[in-house]
């Protein structure tokens, strides 16, 4: 059974510091929902208020419509997977997995049976009698998932559980987590600073910065239609061109940038004279001349070959490079380092957003 989770104007303060500011959102039952943001943005604090280790200073957390304030972590229908997994080192794999059941008073034979089932689910059959220390990183990961699933939670909370794994394993575990989620059908709330993880696994993503939820939407929306400068710069690579808006209407806006007047869409309705940033993704840029208000000319600083694609770095304003990605099979002449090159984009793929804080590189 899965439950929906609702945050209702949740604010969490630690002394003078506000870790989470009026977070409100509703996560549907059975959804794979991610909180994405840089470290210190408050995403772990939100997870701890949902799991019951922290009470919000203001606002309410509801799980399946029930107010959770005053209900301890051991009484909530949630299970948490810790960043460092926190498996019990003195217990065997099976004892770890069935600990929650033992606490609930299930007898030994039933526990053994359940452990075997779960070991099958995580593809570690017959490994129940091993000690946790005898397992590899990926296996430990799966044991932690099984331990949390054993208590049949309605909501599974995951606190960056893949961050300790190496790249290959991490990518493999992404698929596995998604598959497990679809199999068990319960709500997953996933915390990560890795936008790749969030984009590949989640049904929806909440992008957080400085304790504030900046945008909630599915991966495509967050990537293609960012609503703030922070989201545009944090999710995926993006080239910012800052300046004042020279001309604006419903369909588009022209920004006066150090590279001249440049055009993009205007979803937020910036007005003439506003400070704004035009964002163009590296894959939206291509080498060559185009319309004057969608062409940037600068010096080529570097060309990096990355197998499936090449990255061209042009000298940008404020010491920030302009990045351009060229696919391996695109038949373009790649400009030489040190030469001057023009790059252009389809103005529909440029996005003008009100000026705001950018994600730190």
């Amino acid at each position, binding site marked *: 059974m899965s439950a929906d989770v609702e945050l209702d104007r949740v604010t969490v303060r630690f002394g003078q510091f506000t870790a989470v500011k009026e977070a409100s959102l509703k996560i549907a039952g059975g959804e794979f929902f991610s909180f994405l943001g840089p470290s210190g943005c408050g995403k772990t604090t939100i997870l701890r208020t949902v799991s019951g280790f922290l009470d919000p200073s203001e606002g309410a957390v509801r799980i399946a419509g029930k107010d959770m304030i005053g209900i301890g972590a051991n009484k909530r229908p949630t299970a948490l997977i810790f960043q460092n997994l926190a498996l019990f080192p003195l217990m065997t794999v099976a004892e770890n997995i069935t*600990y929650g059941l033992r606490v609930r008073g299930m007898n030994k034979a039933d526990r053994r049976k359940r452990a075997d089932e779960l070991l099958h689910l995580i593809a570690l059959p017959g490994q129940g009698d091993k000690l946790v220390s005898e397992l590899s990183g990926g296996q430990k990961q799966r044991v932690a998932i099984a331990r949390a699933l054993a208590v049949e939670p309605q909501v599974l909370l995951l606190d960056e559980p893949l961050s300790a794994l190496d790249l290959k394993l991490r990518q493999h575990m992404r698929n596995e987590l998604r598959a497990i989620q679809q199999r068990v059908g319960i709500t997953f709330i996933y915390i990560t600073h890795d936008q790749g993880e969030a984009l590949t696994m989640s049904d929806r993503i909440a992008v957080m910065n400085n304790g504030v939820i900046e945008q909630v939407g599915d991966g495509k929306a967050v990537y293609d239609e960012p609503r703030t400068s922070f989201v545009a710069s944090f999710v995926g690579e993006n080239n910012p061109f800052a300046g004042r808006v020279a001309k604006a209407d419903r369909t588009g806006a022209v920004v006066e940038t150090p590279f001249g007047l440049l055009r993009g869409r205007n979803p937020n309705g910036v007005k003439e004279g506003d400070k704004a940033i035009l964002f163009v993704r590296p894959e939206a840029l291509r080498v060559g001349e185009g319309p004057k208000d969608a062409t940037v000319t600068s010096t080529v600083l570097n060309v990096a070959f990355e197998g499936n694609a090449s990255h061209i770095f042009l000298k940008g304003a404020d010491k920030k490079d302009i990045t351009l990605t060229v696919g391996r099979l695109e038949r373009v002449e790649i400009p030489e380092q040190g030469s001057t090159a023009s790059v252009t984009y389809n103005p529909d793929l440029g996005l003008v957003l009100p000026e705001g804080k950018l994600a730190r590189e």
Partner: protein
Amino acid sequence: MSRLFVYLIPVFVIAVFMVMAHFERRVAHDPTHRGFFDRNGTVLGIAFIALVAFWTLFLVVLPYLYMVQESFHPKLVAAERGGPKDILTLEQYRSFFIQPTDGEVNTTHLWAFFFSLAASAAVTVLNFAICYPLAYYMAQAGSVQKVRLLMLALIVPYWVNEILRAFSLRLLLASKGLINQVLMGLGLTDAPVDFLGNNVGLYVGLSYAYLLVMMFPLYNAVESLDKNQIEAARDLGAPWWRIHKDVVIPYAKPGIASGCTMVFMLSAGSLAAPQFLGGPKTLWFTSIVYDFFFQAFNWPRGAAYAFLLLAGCIALVMLMLRVFKVSLGETIR
């Protein structure tokens, strides 16, 4: 014969240290690791070994060996030592079980022995019960400032010397002492409670004396436990007592064993607190040993009794380590 043995000991100790120095390089896994003599030079190397060997010899090995051999001799006046009466004998050990004067079972000493061990065990349990919650609070729950204050409050009383502490406790617990006056004033009791005669003073005094000895190993053990382990258990539904039973105590077991062993050994071997705070009918085993040495000048019997106490303590500790499945190596981690 025994003299030759004594002369051979230094040679033996030095030889052992030389061998240890030689093998030390093999223990290090680094193949470029240089041996003890390569690092220090021959002269300094020998000097180090000789110094450590003599330290070990004169401060550790020899005194005990002397006492061991003393315990296997009869009590003799100085003139008879080395004479025909100076034979190896078990009579001192036998006297612990059977009175040498009348051949009766030595109930007084046997009782004192078992009472001392049992009372020390009780003190150990009491100390654990006091220290575990404190150590857990300090290591896992308390804020830094509160923990510092608590630590200070625990340490400062130890600046007071033992005699002062013991006698002030006596004053508190005496039949006309403060506690009895309060109890009677509140009407909780008509006649004063005989705290000292019932050994309450003894248990309180001993527990207090060795509180820190229990505290620090426990604190160290609990402190290194990952907080996430506690939260994981709670998240899986465990009530607080289960978290302690299943997660904290198993993890801290080596520290608990280490603290308990030390408190037990020190209590069983303590002299001052039982003498000042024990009831009039209470005979602590170390007091008997003390009297043999300094009242009866019977060093052989005193030595034999002291070794019996040591053997008894070690046996009990080993048994407990076995029962609780802790290896000796873990307790000194």
